[in-house]
């Protein structure tokens, strides 16, 4: 693993961490200046939509994190602790999960009852702050997210030197690691013609059991709900390097639709990673808000939209990257009908309706959104 980042790059990361969180801070301290860090804001207020590239990108707005301000002091301290731990990690050449970094940096402060971190929820965003600040990728900091997401299909890869035939992965499939850069994952023989990205593992199981990937000569991937970085990065690499089109299959609700948007355009929180992870060419294949009528799905397989769903739809419609008419039609129609549909609802026709009929028809008729 320690070969994944070049020695040069490693030296640069160490230098950046030391300068930004060590030398600069100490200089301010010696001059009697404010002890503050500029943190790039990673919320909606600092997210832009690049119309040309069709990507969500991060703006330049920053905020100060000042040690001498009582309500920011704790976060300031945490930032330095994480920076220190990252530097150690990079120096040691080991990688670790963000969860183990949390435990690594967690301890009781002095003789108080307060801990440096009370929960991983506190340390994770600080890692992201540091990534953005020093322009380092997570893997360059030697950190891994928890991996989730599985792939199977007509492709042979090499993972950390081991050749893996993704056609022979049984019922479980190959677990996509958190770090999928070219020095870890290499693409070998590829026969697949497209990629089907599926929201849920259960539905992915249906596709695998029905050998959909074999019949239709493709890759099937799921991300266990909102896909993690590794999955998104891998989709992007396969799209770029293997020139495979990507179809996204999600539940018909605002959450599913938003997963499509994340895969295609990027997310707010990781807006700075869109360039590496978003796939602007990704196509939305289903479930569409119009499918209920189109496929004569009975009313009883629909679920009434709850307040949370309605609120989320409203929110999404306000995003700058949700101005395409076809997308708005989907969401507006969902509101109009007042119901949502799970992928599994198609089983009312037949358990394999989704793999035998629904998907092949959609692809053949080019019934997708972009």
């Amino acid at each position, binding site marked *: 693993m320690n070969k994944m980042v070049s020695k040069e790059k490693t030296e640069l990361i160490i230098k950046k961490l030391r300068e930004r969180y060590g030398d600069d801070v100490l200089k301010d*301290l010696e001059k009697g200046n404010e002890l503050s860090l500029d943190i790039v804001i990673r919320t909606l207020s600092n997210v832009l939509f690049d119309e040309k590239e069709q990507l969500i990108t991060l703006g330049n707005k920053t905020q100060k994190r000042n040690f001498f301000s009582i309500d920011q002091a704790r976060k300031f301290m945490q930032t330095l602790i994480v*920076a*220190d731990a990252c530097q150690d990690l990079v120096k040691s050449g080991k990688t670790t999960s963000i969860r183990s970094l949390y435990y690594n940096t967690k301890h009781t402060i002095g003789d108080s009852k307060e801990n440096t971190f009370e929960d991983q929820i506190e340390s994770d965003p600080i890692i992201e702050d540091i990534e953005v600040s020093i322009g380092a990728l997570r893997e360059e900091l030697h950190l891994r997210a928890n991996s989730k997401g599985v792939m199977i299909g007509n492709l042979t890869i090499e993972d950390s030197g081991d050749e893996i035939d993704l056609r022979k992965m049984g019922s479980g499939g190959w677990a996509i690691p958190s770090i999928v850069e070219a020095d870890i994952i290499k693409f070998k023989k590829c026969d697949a013609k497209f990629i089907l990205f599926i929201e849920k593992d259960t539905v992915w199981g249906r596709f695998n059991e029905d050998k959909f990937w074999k019949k239709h000569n493709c890759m099937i991937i799921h991300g266990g709900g909102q896909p993690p970085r590794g999955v998104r990065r891998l989709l992007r690499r396969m799209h770029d390097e293997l020139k495979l089109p990507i179809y996204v299959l999600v539940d018909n609700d605002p959450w599913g639709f938003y997963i499509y948007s994340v895969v295609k355009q990027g997310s707010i929180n990781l807006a700075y990673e869109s360039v590496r992870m978003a796939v602007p060419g990704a196509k939305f294949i289903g479930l569409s808000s119009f499918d209920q009528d189109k496929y004569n799905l009975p009313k009883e397989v629909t679920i009434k939209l709850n307040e949370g769903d309605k609120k989320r739809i409203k929110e999404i419609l306000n995003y700058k990257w949700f101005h395409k008419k076809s997308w708005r039609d989907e969401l507006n129609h969902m509101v109009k009908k007042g119901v949502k549909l799970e992928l599994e609802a198609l089983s009312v026709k037949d358990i394999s309706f989704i793999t035998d009929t629904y998907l092949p028809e959609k692809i053949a008729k080019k019934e997708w959104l972009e």
Partner: protein
Amino acid sequence: MAEYKAVAISEFFEKNKHLLGFDSPTKALITILKEAVDNSLDACEEADILPHIIVKIKNTEKDIFQLSVEDNGPGIEEKYVKDVFGKLLFGSKFKSLGEAGMQSRGQQGIGISASILYSQLTTGEPASIESKVKNKIHYSCKLHIDTSENVPVLEDEKKLETVKDHGTKITMKLKGLYRKTKGPYDYLKYTAIANPHAQLIFVNPEGKKIIFKRVTDKLPKKPKKVAPHPHGVELGTLMKMMARTNSKTVQSFLMNDFSKVGSIGAKDICKLSKLDPHTRPNAVTRDKSSDLMEAMQQVKLQRPPTDCLSPIGEDNIIKGLNKEYNADFVAACTRPVAVYNSIPFQVEVGLVYSKELPSDKQITLIRFANKVPLFYQQSECGIYKAVAKTQWKRYGLSQPGGSLPVGPMVILVDVESVWVPFISEGKQAIASYDEIIKEVKLGLLDIGRKLGSYLSAEQRKYAKERRMKIFDRYSEEVAQSISNLTGKNKEYIMTLIKKEVVKRNE
């Protein structure tokens, strides 16, 4: 009073124990202590002497206590000893509303003679009296009351060799009960607070000497004697006054024997009551007296005089509270003179906030009437009601529904008046007149505001301390991280951070 003479005085006494303050052994000891101390304080002040009073309580037998109170007052001449100590239920103590009066402690008591009688009835022993008037002999005697004749009897009169300049000492032996809290000690402590010009020395039954120090050499302003105001007079009093007056006509009676009545006022009253102004006062019939009284209430007159009261004063309340409590914060407020039922009165309030007092208990309320502590019937007292009705939450204290606030605090309230309205003869609770409650509340509002700003300043101080603690804690971590990242010495970085933290939190 004449009719009481016929009854055996001891019998009268037995029947009226509760009114006289002898209904329990605990109360009896305090009542007698109070009578003796009040007499000493009043005597000293009348003679412009800074009081120096020594109180000794000894437990001679199981439930028998010997109490002695010695003062440096003007002393009592031999020939007046019988009158001063022996006249039971007589003299100025029982003046009623409307008669010429003066604010004094004594009006709240039953008189020292009743105390002597109680001692005598419970132990069979006479009181010992020693007194010295300046340039006169120092003598001593024993005094008991002949209960069949209701007259004082002196025995064992002696001349004493002495160096004493002036003063009086009385010693009584009585049946009582000494309580450590809410007993003689607290009584003297509260008295000391309201009378910071007095030096009180207390030797308790364990032989321990406690000194309540004098903290001011200024005697309180002497109260003036005032004639009653027509607006407050009652029929019985009016008739008694008319029977006793030296004035020859009703008009001159009204002008001479009342305050704020001029010739126009007097004529108006007579006209309204259809009474000839030249009528002799003792010739006015009962019915006519009633008309006269009604007219007196209706005629417009100047307000009662207000210079007849002698407040403790804000400075002295603060001094008094400060010396008896280890105070973190003290405030006081002397309200202007106000009037209820035409009677002038004045309210004073004080407050002590001390971290040494329990913070999770209700505050201690100490009530006074004319600087005399009120010990019993707290919840029936108008003072208590005013404190409980005040919204203490806005000043940063909790207050369980409609009662005293909770906090490490003592609140003092003194009501001064020529005639303090007690709810009963026990004279331990002040009646809840709207005007009195209003004045107490206004006083509390004033000290409450002062307390509120003190507490919020305290809170800011506390917040600062808390902030400094947080910075201290985080500084260690930050210094360690910077040291790890830069390779510089941690102690050096720590010193820099500490300096900045202190600088920025000044």
